[in-house]
């Protein structure tokens, strides 16, 4: 009756909120799995024990479908639907791995890495690190054509909040913070400024977090998969931005 809240498990992220509903049985990589109607394919894959990489998806937030690393193949359907935004159907046959899926996921991750500070990857323990491990790409090759492109590595470093930093250089624009502020906290203090490549996460009217309507509940920090929003207390020597980047 309260699955979206009470079926959440510490240390496990099912990717999309658990649902209440009639049981639906499908197969993921040949493994039969039964989940509630209205659940996502991503959630079903997780229950079946199949690891589908993800970045913008979290079981505390409604599915969004922006990161495109949770793509899967579904028998009888064209293309490579995002498993987070695809609801399960009875009898559905899902494949979570294939050469094409691996290639597409690598391609998407390379796009992320083309605008991410290289020095912040080794030794990190964010969800992004986990996803990179799953996809099997950790850095762009030195001669990768994406290097030296336009980037946001000189973006805002917001230290105004006493407890956390927002480092735009590490932001992958997945909107999890924006959505957490809206869906979980209900303050609506964050937004995406601009659009397209120019999209950036900002507080209020592109102002510091402290000046904005942010109430510092921490939901955005909790939601951030790439440590762009992170507690200052984890940096005993103070937070410094990495100076090298892949870009």
């Amino acid at each position, binding site marked *: 009756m*309260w699955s979206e*809240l*009470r079926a*959440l*498990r*510490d240390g496990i992220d099912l990717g999309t909120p658990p649902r209440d509903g009639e049981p639906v049985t499908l197969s993921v990589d040949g493994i039969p799995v039964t989940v509630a109607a209205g659940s996502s394919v991503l959630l079903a894959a997780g229950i079946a024990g199949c690891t589908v990489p993800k970045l913008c998806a979290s079981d*505390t937030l409604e599915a969004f479908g922006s990161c495109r690393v949770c793509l899967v193949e579904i028998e009888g359907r064209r293309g490579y639907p995002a498993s987070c935004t695809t609801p399960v159907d009875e009898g559905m046959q899902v494949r979570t791995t294939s050469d094409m899926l691996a290639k597409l996921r690598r391609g998407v991750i390379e796009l992320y890495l083309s605008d991410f500070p290289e*020095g*912040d990857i*080794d*030794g*990190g*323990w964010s969800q992004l690190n986990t996803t990179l491990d799953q996809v099997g790409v950790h850095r762009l090759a030195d001669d990768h054509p994406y290097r030296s492109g336009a980037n946001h590595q000189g973006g805002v470093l917001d230290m105004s*909040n*006493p*407890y*956390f930093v927002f480092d735009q250089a590490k932001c992958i624009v997945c909107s999890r913070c924006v959505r957490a502020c*809206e*869906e*979980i*906290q*209900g*303050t*609506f203090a964050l937004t995406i400024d601009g659009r397209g490549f120019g999209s950036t996460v900002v507080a209020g009217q592109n102002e510091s977090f*402290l000046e904005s309507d942010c*109430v*510092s*509940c*921490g*939901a955005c920090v*909790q939601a951030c998969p790439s*440590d762009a929003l*992170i*507690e200052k*207390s*984890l*940096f*005993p020597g103070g*937070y*410094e*931005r*990495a100076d090298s980047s892949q870009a």
Partner: protein
Amino acid sequence: MPIPVKPDQSTITTCAYCGVGCGFKAETSGGQIVRMTPWKEGKANHGHSCVKGRFAFDYYRHPDRVRSPMIRVSIEDPWREVSWDEAFAHAAGELKRIQETYGSGSVGAVSSSRCTNEEIYLMQKFARVGLRNNNIDNCSRICHSPTQFGLSATLGAGAASQHFDSILRSDVILVVGANPTEGHPVFGSMMKRSVRRGANLLVIDPRRTETVDSPHCRASVHLALRPGTNVLVLDSIAHVVVTERLYDEAFVRARCDWDDFELWMSQVGDVRYSPDVVGPEAGLEPDAIRELARRYAAGPNSTIYYGLGVTEHSQGSTGVMCLGNLAMACGMIGREGVGVNPLRGQGNVQGGSCLGSWPHMFTGYRFVTDAATRAVFENEWKIDLDGEPGLRLPNMFDAAVAGSFKGLYIQGEDPVQSDPNRHHVEAALRNMECVIVQDLYETETTKFAHVLLPGSSSLEKNGTFTNAERRVSMVRKIVEPVAGLEDWEITVGMINAMGYELKYDHPSEVLDEIARTSPAYSGMSFELIERVGSVQWPCNTAAPEGTEVLHTVTFPRGKGSFMLTEYVPTKERVDDRFPLLLTTGRILSQYNAGTQTRRTANNAWYDDDVLDISADDAAQRGLRNGDRVRVASRYGETELSITVSGRVHPGVVYTTFHFAHTMVNAVTSDLNDWATNCPEYKVTAVEVTKVTKVTKVTKVTEVTS
């Protein structure tokens, strides 16, 4: 290259900052807390948090911590550090000396809702087996004692009828005298989620709070009543329900005492409570009262959440009864999505109420005058118990001023700052011969103490908290207590020093004792809580893993009882000298008297109490944003800066009470609830005047502005 520290250990515990009781994971590295993250499986918070619980934990390692027991003969003397044993012996010796000189009833104790259930239980045990009297009270006296009284009288249980998640099943949410988004932020977020999903929000509050109007959350009806008219307005709502026949007759006939109901109908149905009469007196549009009543009665699932804006009045208990009556009349009780729910201030106010820290009640709200109940405890404790109710905290202070009360053991409370009529409290403490304070820091109250026992924070001890939805959750020791002892061990030391031999190896043994003696807790144990995460009482053989929704079949008192709720205006009135009504509340980033949060970076948001005043009232007094003003009442005065705010109506001013130096409680009235002595913090007639600054500063201001 910024690689974040990776914590080496993570421990699940419960936040102490408010009655929501969020589950947290305390993550440590090398024995120090590096961060607190919300626990996804916490049933009160489901992985959410607020700025206090999530970030404001540095207070535990603040240099101001009291690190050793200290004693002194006179409050003029400097403190002398002593061993625990010497402190216990000295304190107990003094209490026994006072009792020998002034009588058994000349000493007492007060417990804190920031402490665990086990510690609160031990405090009442200290009074009953150590002091051998019933002079034990708890700090809910000054916040939610009317809840206990009013809900027991109507429904039979002085606690929230629902679990927090229930609000997602509500079609109509009535919030009375509470501001969840500031005071109970994680529940506030849940409430907003329900509103965004289509629930209709109704608010009764003198201020246009964030609860009334914030992004995607706007009250459809807001009754901005004049402070002090709660009961009048609630009776008027009942009047509409009665006269428009909006009540649920089938429910009332099945579940409630029909004769009581008819009597109640004849009272609230009288024309003196019609919206047309009440509206002008309460400063409301009569149609708004009708609209609210109709929406609430229409449901289908309407729920009530209320806070100190209901209880902290001279008719606080009556106000609570009004809410119980209203819910029963409309059949809005006994299932998910409905109910009557107090929003508790401190982390363990519900526990403070349940665990017998009352001068007239044992655990589970059973009277000390009842021989059968006494027998339960006499059997458990192997000691004869006093059957006479003891003194309430305000009575203890009154008695102290009068000279008959001389010793007090205060656990984690700062009555000088928190309690009403500061001058009276100070006079009472000055008159005592032994004041024992157990606290994290030196406070306004420790200035009057003779024994100072270094308390342990909720990060430094094991035990349980009961939150505002009756949920008992585990508090776990993350770091060692600064002075070596957890609060429960200190109280055990005091009990032993008083001559009653007692030994517990772990707080779980205390909870076991509570379970043995208290029906609502009879199924409760650390083992159960460990296994299922948290448990809502009642927990017993009928409900082995606890109870989410109360009153589903019957009320604990059998038939629900409609209490008569005649409106009696407070004696606190505005006049020419004091034309404004001051009301008080709290702000998100600070917590109560601020002892903890003021010692964190939360001051970045709010570093002083500020007086909100309407533009009209400010203009009349020649005041501008940021001006310093003198706030004077019949009881005292203080100085504050003002904010000209659209959130208060003309005639009303508002402030918080988080900062010791502002001494807001020096201004508040000493009137209190007729039934429980809960102080009337929410209504004080005041005048606000500009503090004239030296000419030089004024000139500088003019140049820059």
